[in-house]
């Protein structure tokens, strides 16, 4: 079913990660990306993975959920890894057949890249799992607000994102309903060739567009009725405050990053 999609889904739980300030979580995610790409040796990578495991433990999310977030991109990971096995030369030649040559270097790079991508995805899905979409866009708006100087419509962008995110589940539900209704009239989405399948989507897409436009008009009217005029002079119901735990988590992350850099200097890179 369509409802099985978990990307960007929020899972409420009473954990430390959930309670962190969303702005800090965004910054930490950026730091995490650095942490994934800095290590050039196995020990560094191991430290990064250990840090990730700690974060997962602190998030209080079930392990199944974490696995679910990487499942859709597993083919991509496999593809890049396999490509790397054959492309990267260096190290000892292990195996050679026709134009395919496998070096130890290729194997190591493949493993390294695979682990990096998995870490990257899990890390960023931790952000979306533990932060509600509204909190996330709120944080984004605050973090980008210095760009107002450049006349960037930060509030409008954030509002658009909020609305888009807000309507994803609604539209998924709507799609499910329309699919059921058309199935009840004998529509068949599962069999036939490519053209037939594309054609079979028409009875879903047209009603979906009609309803999306209807919802958009209704929402616009409702917003105007409440005198919405954009970000100018707007105050907030939920004020964000940085707490001690936010500074602490930043300090820990920076320390890990610093340690990773030191390890890079002290330990020889794998390649």
């Amino acid at each position, binding site marked *: 079913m369509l409802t099985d999609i978990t990307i960007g889904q929020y899972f409420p739980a009473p954990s430390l990660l959930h309670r962190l300030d969303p702005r800090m979580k965004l910054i930490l995610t950026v730091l995490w990306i650095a942490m994934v790409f800095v290590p050039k040796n196995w020990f560094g990578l191991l430290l990064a993975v250990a840090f990730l495991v700690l974060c997962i433990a602190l998030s209080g999310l079930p392990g199944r959920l974490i696995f679910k977030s990487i499942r859709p991109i597993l083919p991509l990971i496999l593809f890049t890894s396999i490509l790397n096995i054959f492309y990267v030369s260096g190290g000892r030649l292990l195996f050679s057949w026709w134009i395919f040559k496998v070096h130890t270097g290729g194997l190591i790079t493949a493993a390294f890249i695979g682990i990096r991508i998995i870490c990257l995805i899990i890390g960023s899905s931790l952000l979306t799992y533990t932060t509600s979409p509204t909190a996330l866009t709120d944080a984004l708006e605050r973090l980008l607000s210095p760009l107002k100087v450049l006349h960037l419509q930060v509030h409008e962008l954030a509002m658009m994102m909020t609305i888009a995110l807000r309507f994803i589940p609604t539209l998924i539900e709507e799609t499910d*309903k329309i699919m059921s209704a058309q199935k009840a*009239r*004998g*529509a*068949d989405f599962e069999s036939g060739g490519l053209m037939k399948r594309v054609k079979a989507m028409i009875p879903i897409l047209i009603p979906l567009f009609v309803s999306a436009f209807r919802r958009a008009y209704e929402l616009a009217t409702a917003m105007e009725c409440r005198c919405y005029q954009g970000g100018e002079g707007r105050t907030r119901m939920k004020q964000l405050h940085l707490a001690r735990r936010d500074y602490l988590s930043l300090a820990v992350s920076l320390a890990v990053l610093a340690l990773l850099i030191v390890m890079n200097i002290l330990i020889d890179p794998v390649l």
Partner: protein
Amino acid sequence: MTVLQTENLCYTYSPGMPFEHTALHDISIGFEQGELTAIIGHTGSGKSTLVQHLNGLLKPASGRVLLNGEDIWADPKNIRNIRFRVGMVFQYPEHQLFEDTVEKDIAFGPRNMGLSEEEIDQRVKEAAEFVGLSASLLKKSPFDLSGGEKRRTAIAGVMAMRPEVLILDEPTAGLDPHGRDLILEQIDRYRRKNGTTVLLVSHSMEDVARIADKVLVMQHSRVAMYDTAPRVFDRAAELEEMGLSVPAVTRIFSQLADKGIADHDAVYTLEQAEQAAVALLKEKGVTVC
């Protein structure tokens, strides 16, 4: 004869997830040939989940659904045929219209059944007539119709498949009183003519009292009551405890009975109320013109 039957039907949404929620719990009921059964219950009581099992849109977690004594999931490949035999009109069915003419939209179901063009044409005309859509509307775009007309187009789309069982999920929701009367009347006429078994999910007790033979009351994913309409409405106190109501006229007459003014007669529809009121006034010596 029992047309459609469920045996120990259970269903759970998102099993194993934080949002896990049991929607049906051990439902075993049967629907008789030609009867109109109204399904009532609170939002979230499992009505919609139940009806979606009856035409195979949802697959039971455990238990069976039997159509004429045969398990509808006996051959999963055959489930499309089951959907033609058990027609389902969803809530706000006008949101599913997509073709460029009303005629083509009604023909979508019959065409999926693989019928001949003449047969399709005939069925479309017949179904359109049943729901009172004039021939001039058939060539129009469904998006140019009024709300009530759109709704009737969508209902005609299912009727045109000539299902043995017709399920309607709140067919009168959001319509004006006239549109609502019209649709109920058409459904009633349709089933009397074709002997179709009809299931009607509804929130309106007035509608239910007017056309239902039997009433199925759902509460907390279980069957709370399943009996003829008068017998269910007799249990007004229980219904009210569940947060459901009985028709307004029934309430008035039961209060009159409590005060010792009227007999505790079964009064469920406006027509019955009129008769009962006239009889009561005559009894008191008031002349009624």
